């Protein structure tokens, strides 16, 4: 399928990546100031979340991971409420009871970061099941990492999704593309005995594909085909994108923002002035979210006892 990408889409993709990085850098600032606790970062994966989400509408759902910021931000989750949740405040998406690993913003279909590796994947099949039974053309995206790809629940869900022809796309972000590591440690025994996780797709009877996760337009094209397949009712797809976990700066050759900035400058789609404008606008939004989080009240102690069940029929 040939898909040309308009300048406006290109700039949206770029802005979405900048927004994710800026949001996470805002978290870093608060962490370094000792104002919030530890968060697991998504930095380096921005192209995947930005490009996948570019194909989604609000009513589509995503299931995410313990590194959820990119997925949630790209899906349109409320930055203020997210930052407040990360700061454990009562105004957070989860009223300060879940933290960064468990952010849900149901208004935009961001149905869950998840503290258990692979934990959201079976649930995401449930979002897709709802879409199928309700005969909508909505789809669900299940994000997970290369470690989760081996979890039993993920393998089971690939099979279930194929058997039930669920309208969903599995998006694996493989952050150990060259040598296999676990939390930075070079592991003696590999987690994976195959080069591409999408090689498992045909074994489950579904389509699949792999690509570089730092090239946003490539991700956009590959994801676009999978999303369209799901929307048409032609079943799920297993995609894998290789990424590198990075830090705040944009100096790496694998930094999706740097790669795209250079490309868009060459194409004259982006100028220094426009880049400056995008970055300052995003920085202002993130600053607003940080101020909101820091200015928000702590939950009342009595709230610890609430919300085990919801009331009423």
């Amino acid at each position: 399928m040939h898909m040309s990408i308009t300048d406006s889409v290109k700039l949206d993709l770029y802005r979405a990546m900048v927004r994710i990085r800026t949001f996470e850098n805002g978290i870093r600032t608060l962490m370094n100031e000792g104002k919030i606790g530890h968060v697991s970062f998504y930095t380096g994966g921005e192209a995947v979340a930005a490009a996948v989400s570019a194909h989604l509408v609000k009513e589509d759902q995503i299931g995410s991971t313990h590194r959820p910021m990119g997925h949630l931000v790209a899906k349109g989750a409320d930055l203020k409420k997210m930052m407040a949740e990360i700061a454990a405040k009562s105004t957070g998406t989860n009223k300060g009871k879940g933290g960064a690993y468990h952010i849900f913003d149901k208004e935009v279909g961001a149905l869950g970061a998840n503290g258990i590796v692979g934990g959201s994947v079976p649930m995401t099949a449930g979002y897709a099941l709802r879409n199928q039974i309700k005969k909508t053309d909505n789809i669900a995206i299940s994000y997970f990492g290369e470690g989760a790809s081996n979890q039993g629940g993920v393998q089971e869900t690939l099979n279930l999704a194929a058997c039930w022809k669920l309208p969903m796309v599995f998006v694996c972000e493989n952050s150990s593309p060259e040598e296999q590591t676990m939390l930075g440690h070079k592991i003696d025994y590999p987690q994976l005995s195959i080069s591409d996780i999408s090689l498992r797709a045909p074994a489950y009877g579904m389509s699949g594909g792999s690509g570089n996760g730092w090239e946003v337009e490539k991700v956009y094209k590959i994801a676009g085909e999978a999303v369209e397949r799901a929307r048409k009712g032609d079943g799920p797809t297993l995609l894998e994108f290789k990424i590198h976990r990075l830090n705040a700066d944009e100096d790496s050759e694998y930094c999706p923002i740097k790669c795209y900035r250079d490309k868009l400058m060459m194409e004259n789609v982006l100028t220094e002035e426009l880049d400056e404008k995008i970055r300052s606008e995003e920085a202002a939004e993130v600053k607003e979210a940080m101020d909101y989080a820091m200015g928000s009240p702590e939950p009342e102690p009595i709230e610890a006892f609430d919300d085990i069940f919801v009331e009423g029929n």
Partner: protein
Amino acid sequence: MARTITYAEAICEAQRDALRNDPDVILFGENVAAPWRPSTKGLKDEFGKERVRDAPITETAFIGAGVGAAIAGMKPIVELMLIDFGLVAMDQILNQMAKTTYMTGGNINVPMVMRAIYGARGGGAATHSECLYGVYAHMPGMKIVVPSNPYDAKGLLATAIKDKNPVVVFEHSRLTNMKGEVPEESYEIPFGVANLVREGSDVTVVAVGKMVNEAARAADELKDKVSVEVIDPRTLVPLDEEAILRSVQKTGRLVVVDEDYERCGFSAEVAAIVAEKGFHNLKAPVARVANPNVPLPFNKELEKQILPDTEKIIRAIKNVVK
């Protein structure tokens, strides 16, 4: 109008009513579309294979899909063939189904029912015979329902399906064919309201599920010697503590009968509640008749050694009233 039907037929009726009245209700699990299974019989024919669907033998995937479907706005009934098989899916059950409401500050709710067959079937051995409601009741966030008869099964399941929270319904394998009077029309039995099965004044027996019937038999056999009150809490979460405490206030004696493991289980919970809140009413130590922490053996004679039954309940009652 009431007629006599089985426990499994009562369960089927509650599901049929819900599927008829609410398009968001769906049912899936292993073999739920099979025409011979009494608790789901005829449902696929009436509602179609989309809403009543067979799932592959992957409990983690299909229970998780139930959790997700519930979060996304459906009201799934997920059938687990045996409660023992839920042990392979504990992340989706305990971490996801049970905790999501609290962890999202109540912004997300999980209106899901998980139905499962439980209990000793006679020679099932320890992976096809367990109760495990103690494990489930231990984790906050799930309501736990253990119906002891066809009438309760229909009414409690109807309530479970309407509940906005995760509910686990434990259906005893040996009660499947139990017959009882059940109204044709739909009705609901509220959670947290115990059923007074036998009224008495000498000793309170609290029992759940199949053990309610064993306890009632014990009460009937003793009726000329001991006045036994039998209470069926019907739901472990929420638990009708009031009914238990009120009864113990009257009788001064308590026997808890539980097919589940004794250690840290339901029988321990009831004993602890009475020790904390009704201690001064007790005329004798609390007695428990429960599985003495043994995986159920395959051999039926060995199994009998471990399981609570009418005879053991009678012995315990005689002991606390002497």
